[in-house]
Every structure is written in C-alpha cells, then in structure tokens.
C-alpha cells in the first residue's frame, strides 16, 4: 500500500513537472511572444520595450527556470491585461468554477448512478435499451448549444431560471445541468457494466442464499464492488468538467476560472493562461490521486497490498 502510494505520488509530481514545462513551451509556440503582447499595430520600438519589460530578452533557459522557480511557490507573475497578480485573479474566481464543477458532478451522479443500476438490473430489456439510447443522445449534445437552448426555453420562455450571472444558486442550475450532460454517459455506462459484473458474481449468489433482501443485495453487496471504477471515472470526469467549464462559463457569463481563461486567451495574457493550464492539470492529478486513495479504502485487497 505504502509502496503503491509512493509510486502514485511520484508519478503525480512528474506529471505536474511535465505540465509545467508544457505550459511554458505552449506560450513560446507562436515564435516571438513580445510581438503578440505588443499587438498587431505596434512599432519596432514598442516591441523592444515590451521585450525588456517582460524579461523576454533573456535566454530561454533562464526564462524557463525563472518561471518554474516562481511557479512552484505559487507566484505566476502579474497579468499583462488585468494589472493584478495572476494568483489573486485565479483564487478570486476559483470558487465559482469549483461550485459549478461540484454542482455538475452532483447532478451527473444523481442521474447516472440510478440509471446505470436500473439498466444493469434490467439488462437487455427495453428499459435498458432506452436508457442506453438516452445516454447516446446525451453524448451527442454539443454543450454550448444545449446551454443556449436551455436559456431560450427555461430562461426566456418559461422564465424559471436566470439566464446568466452568478448571484444565487439558481444561476448554477442550468450551467451545472449542461456540464453534467457531458459526464453522464460515461458514468452511467461504467455503473451499468460494474453492476452487471457484480450481480453475476458468486458472492451475490451467496448473499441470495443467505436470504438477504433485494435492497441489501443490490445496494450493499453489489454496489460496493461496482463502486470502484465509478469512483475513478467520477474523479476523471470532474477534472474534465472543470476543463470544460471554459465553454459553459462563457455561454452563461459565469465569471469563474474558465471565463478568465477565455478572456486571457483572447487578450494574449499569457501568464494567466499558463497558470490556469497548470492549475487545471494539478487539480486533475490530485483528483485521480484522491480516487486511487478512495479505492484503496473501498477495496480491502488494495489496502493490504
């Protein structure tokens, strides 16, 4: 167990370092960063000034190590556009994105888990087919378009929910739903597969031979064993959702990290872009790490190993 943990931790650290390098390389992709920052209509002197001001005249290696050594302690420099420290910018907006992601995950789980279980218990029957078809339909839904359609329907015509902004919990219902849509099919499929597997296991026959109730057989004996892959995929999906929030936040004008990322991309504000890429990668890595830990708690065999 300890060895497994140590190994996972090492991989996580290496992944973060890789992403760090990647995030740095990303912004040098376009060639001369100074030209991009100075804008299209700037003179040669302007560009030189920018180059000096941002330290872009130093050797690339120096720039890289300078950036990395600051980044590891959470200093991502100042935003070119917002005139603020990047870390402040991001941490001000993180709560909104996290709320959105958790609401999305909550909705996704509360839809996907029951549907997956029902599907598994009715394997091959019409109910199962219909649920699979619905999952497939959900998977095909372009999230930004779904967002707009919901806005028209529930915001404009029915007037049930606010169209954009972040004032109340109602503001998170539509974006959360849209975000959930992208995670539901994968979660549901895995729940279904896991439950089908578990329900045909020998220990379920034992549980029935003990005369346990249907509820206890399904929810206690089968679900616990089906939960492990679901936990892993839920963590991965939450990571993807936070990454996907850039589209949803733009559609619904939620001023979270995704919206910030979109703004800074369109304003060539590279320090912020780099920081958000890194932050999302770290969150994703932590989530998968957390899922592995949770699985170790769920599965006594892993715990002992």
């Amino acid at each position, binding site marked *: 167990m300890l060895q497994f943990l140590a190994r996972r931790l090492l991989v996580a650290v290496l992944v973060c370092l890789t992403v760090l390098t990647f995030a740095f390389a990303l912004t040098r992709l376009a060639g001369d960063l100074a030209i991009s920052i100075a804008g299209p209509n700037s003179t040669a002197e302007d560009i030189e000034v920018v180059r000096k001001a941002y330290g872009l005249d130093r050797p690339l290696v120096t720039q890289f190590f300078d950036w990395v050594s600051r980044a590891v302690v959470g200093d991502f420099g100042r935003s070119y556009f917002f005139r603020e420290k990047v870390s402040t910018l991001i941490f001000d907006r993180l709560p909104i994105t996290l709320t959105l992601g958790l609401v999305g995950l909550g909705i996704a789980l509360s839809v996907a888990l029951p549907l997956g279980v029902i599907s598994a218990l009715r394997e091959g029957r019409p109910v199962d087919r219909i649920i699979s078809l619905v999952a497939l339909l959900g998977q*095909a839904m372009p999230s930004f*378009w779904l967002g707009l359609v919901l806005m028209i329907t529930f915001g404009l015509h029915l007037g049930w929910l606010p169209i954009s902004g972040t004032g109340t919990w109602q503001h998170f219902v539509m974006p959360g739903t849209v975000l959930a849509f992208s995670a539901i099919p994968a979660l549901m499929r895995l729940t279904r597969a896991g439950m089908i597997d578990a329900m045909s296991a020998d220990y379920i026959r034992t549980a029935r031979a003990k005369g346990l109730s249907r509820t206890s057989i399904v929810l206690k004996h089968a679900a616990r064993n089906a939960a492990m892959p679901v936990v892993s995929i839920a963590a991965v999906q939450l990571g993807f959702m936070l990454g996907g929030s850039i*589209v949803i936040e733009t559609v619904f004008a939620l001023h979270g990290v995704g919206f910030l990322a*979109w703004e800074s991309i369109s304003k060539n504000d590279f320090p912020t872009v780099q920081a958000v*890429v890194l932050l999302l990668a770290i969150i994703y890595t932590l989530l998968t790490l957390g899922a592995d830990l949770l699985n170790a708690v769920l599965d006594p065999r892993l715990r002992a190993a």
Partner: protein
Amino acid sequence: MSRWRSWGRNWGLWLGAFIVGFTLFVAIFAPMVATQDPFAQDLSRRLVPPSWMEGGRPQHFLGTDGLGRDYFARLVYGARISMLIGIATVVTSGIIGIALGVVGGFFGGRIDDVILFTITARLSIPLILVALAVVSLVGSSLTVVVATLGLLLWDRFAVVARVATMQVRTLDYVAAAWSAGCSQPYIVMREILPNILSPLAVVATLEMALAILLEAALSFLGLGVPPPLPSWGLMIAEAKDYMFFNPWVIMVPGMSLFVLVFGINLLGDGLRDLLRTGRVA
C-alpha cells in the same frame, strides 16, 4: 422474418451508417446539393425564416442568417468542414496514438512505462483550454485546428492499442512468428496491427465525434475555423445574438451537429456490439 429481427437488433448501426453516409455525400457534393453561394451576403434579406414558416421565402429553404446569407447553403458547406475535421483529426491522432500504444504494448518494460506516463500527462492537460490557446497563438485556420486536435486527441487510441497489443502479443500465431525468426517491424505490421484494428475502429468513431464537437466549440468561442467559413459551431456563435427572437437560427446548425454526432456514436456503438458478438446479429 429473421431479416426483420436482425434489422431490429442492429437498427442503430444502420441508422448511424445512414446518417454518416448521408452527411459525407452532402459534404462531397456540396456544390450540387446547395445551389446558392454560402458566402454571398444580401443585407436586404437578413434573418429570413425557413420557407415553411411565416415570412419564409421559397428560394431560401432554411432562411438566411444575420448577414442575409443562405442558411441551407451554409449548412451544406458546413458539413464539409465537420467531416473534414472529423476525418483528418482521426487520421492524425490515430497515427500518433496507435504508434505509441503498439510500441508500449509490444515492448513493455521501461518503454511501456514511458508511454504510460506520456498518456497520463496528456490526460491531465485541459483539452479545450490548450486547444484554444494554441489556436489563438498560432492563428486560426482549418489546418491549425486539425493539427491541434490531432496532437491532443490520441490518448484513447494509445490506451486501446496498448492493451490490445499486449493481448495479441501473447497469442500463438505471434509467438510462432517470433520463433520463425520474423523481424519486429514485420510482426507488428503483419501480425499485430491487423488483429487490433477492430477495437480501434470503435475508438475512431468516438474520436471523430469528439473532434467534430470540439471544433464546433472552438469555432463557437471564436478560436476555431475563421469566418466567413461556414462551420456549424461558428454559425451558432453568429446566430447567438438573434436567438431569443429567432430561435431557429441556432436550432438549424445545432440540430445538424447533434444528429451527425449522434449518428457517429450510433455507428460506433453498433460496431462495438458487432465485434462483441462477432457477427451481424
């Protein structure tokens, strides 16, 4: 009777194949399907509704957009972009992913560790964000979008190819080829690749669907295919300002996108079932 039943069980595969085939046909023969110019603006005829709605005109079957361009023509040419992006991305990412996966699965050991790490690192990178950043930095064009998505979407190919290669490698005929003294490239090309193609075909459909959706999202955010090209995502973005009064302007491209991606997914699902049962049921 049995033919009907087999159709009933495989309807998804056929419907999916039909949707994809139809879109491909429209994309290839776009100039013949749509007689109007998708770029020609006519500011005197802006936001004409589809021909069956009140105020519609017969010459604009699906109406016109905010700049008076024929919506049907734009939709038809938009199919070209979606299909092009889908296919080109799958080819690019497929080559990268399959190469990595096969190498990892075939050689195992340290090499496999490195490849597994590469996959893990790739998965941790936020997809849309990085794609947006790259397109924004390099400048938006069809080629850039394809290259970006191709370089990002190889992970599932690699995962599946790696596992499939591991399984195939241990099979008898591969062992036989080894002992017959065949070279490694020969074994990979002749014995391994043909035997892992079927699961990869399913992955290809999934990735194609994903690429089309991502391109639409990028274009919707203004950092995908540049205007005035008629990408469906871009059409939705351009229509956004009018959608509260003319909902059909987002419904037309949105539904098309939805149906196409649904068709591709149906095709992939059908293929998966087919491969699982090993026959056309």
